[in-house]
């Protein structure tokens, strides 16, 4: 069953004549002509006519400097906000969203945080406990069900947050710089874990970051956004085999190329 959640009606300005065709079976996320203004329309938009399609099971990294509207874009896909213009389609229903902060609820244990996501999805009491334990095992936190949030390290919290996001059973996982606040070693481990879980679950992932190497290490596709207004500048297909390491020469080479483009993009604003 496919439910199309259209965040806004397509306007004549972008698709004259007919409405946009509904996303087909080969699409996890489709954005067409998406613009977002905050406040009055005379100010430059945060996002300007974004067209982006993510295939089922695809791992796409959105890369950009501050002010490129990366987080705004994820909010639109997550349905937390509506675009000023254009359409956002997520055929498989509500996506899961992970933030930079783990944002676990401190009044619940690690396991209860996951169970809350299951409960809000309508999972019965018996199944919740078993499913929460399965998800905790998936992120290598067996036996942490009763741990309080403040008893967990930053990396452990972010893994619980990942398990909670997976508990939402969305086919799309949106990640808003989820590892930016972690130390380098922990981040590296999280990259391995995310890659493993992505390959095991076949989820589509849209991963927002300002870290070029992180994008190249993780993504199958890297999309570079410009800042103010946020537009898609360029994209790269990352044809490197898994498992990848952040030190791989292939990762480094592509990162240099993308970084040059990113720097050029940023320097435009100083002129």
């Amino acid at each position: 069953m496919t439910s199309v959640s259209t965040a806004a009606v397509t306007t004549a300005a972008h698709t004259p004549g007919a409405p946009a065709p509904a996303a087909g079976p080969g699409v996890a996320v489709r954005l067409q002509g998406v613009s977002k203004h905050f406040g009055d329309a005379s100010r430059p938009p945060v996002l300007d006519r974004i067209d982006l399609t993510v295939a089922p099971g695809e791992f796409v990294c959105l890369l950009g400097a501050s002010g490129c509207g990366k987080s705004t874009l994820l909010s639109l896909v997550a349905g937390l906000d509506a675009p000023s213009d254009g359409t956002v389609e997520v055929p498989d229903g509500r996506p899961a969203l992970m933030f930079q902060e783990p944002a676990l609820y401190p009044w619940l244990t690690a396991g209860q945080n996951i169970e809350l996501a299951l409960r809000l999805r309508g999972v019965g009491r018996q199944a919740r406990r078993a499913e929460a334990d399965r998800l905790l095992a998936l992120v290598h936190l067996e036996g942490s069900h009763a741990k309080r949030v403040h008893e967990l390290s930053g990396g452990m919290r972010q893994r619980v947050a990942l398990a909670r996001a997976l508990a939402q059973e969305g086919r799309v996982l949106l990640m808003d710089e989820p590892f930016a606040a972690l130390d380098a070693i922990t981040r590296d481990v999280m990259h391995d874990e995310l890659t493993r879980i992505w390959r095991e679950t076949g989820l589509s992932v849209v991963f927002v970051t300002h870290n070029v190497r992180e994008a190249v290490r993780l993504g199958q596709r890297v999309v570079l956004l410009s800042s103010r207004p946020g537009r898609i500048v360029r994209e790269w297909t990352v044809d490197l085999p898994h498992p990848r390491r952040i030190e791989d020469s292939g990762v480094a080479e592509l990162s240099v190329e993308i970084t040059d483009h990113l720097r050029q993009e940023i320097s435009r604003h100083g002129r």
Partner: protein
Amino acid sequence: MAADTTHTASPGRVDARALEAGLDALETAVVAPRRSAWSTAWSAFWPTALALGVFVAVWQLVYLAGVKPEYALPGPADVATTFVGILQDGTALKASALSLQRGGLGFVVSVVVGVVLGIAMATIPLLRRAIGPMITGLQSLPSIAWVPAAVIWFGLSNTTIFAVVLLGAVPSIVNGLLTGVDQVPPLFLRVGRVLGARGWDRIRFVLLPAALPGFLGGLKQGWAFAWRSLMAAELITNAPRLGTGLGQVLDLGRTLSDMSLVIAAIFLIFAVGIAIELLVFAPLERRVLHARGLTGLAGQ
């Protein structure tokens, strides 16, 4: 030797699970050993006991100096005798029990009314703008001001007492809840939306538990207001069929011009208020904060 170090084979990639287990162990906060309950209790108790001792000593000196006639200012010993007397004849216990029963019931009803009103105001901005200033104003109105009106409406009855308690406690509880809601980190609410918490689920699973630490202050203040309002109401609403609460004991002391009884009653009212704070609210607050790692005992 240099060749040794440069040509040593890399140990190979450590399995992610093993690496994580190591990191988790290293990064998990080392919990400082907790002080024993006794030493915590003692360090809280002795300064208070000392201050109380000084107070009684000063009182005794003033009494010995004869600043006021004995019927107006009895010494600590006289008051202690009266106090033991009302303890022995059961007056103290019965009056405390009746007042606590009234205060407890009034407080519970106030919490229910306050929470319902607070949630409505937190979720309907227009309602909050409309009645928020009035609720805040009511908070600063001494609840004894309601007693004459309540007596005219409800006569000398328990309804009058409860009406005054509710009017005293509800505004603090409403404002406490709104303070708690205002302090909820916006990220918690965003996560709630992402997880699909809507309507009553949002209130039950996200808003209320997130607001609880801030709301605790409002609950404590609500109890203090309920207790004060109750004493004001009991003092004035005095009829034999209503039974004898602590406020009525106080009024009895006034009519008999028995200053020892008046002071003993004041002491009892004070002691019951403190006891509820120590036995109900302090443990509740400690539990809530400790569960969230907000007590500073969780390590670095």
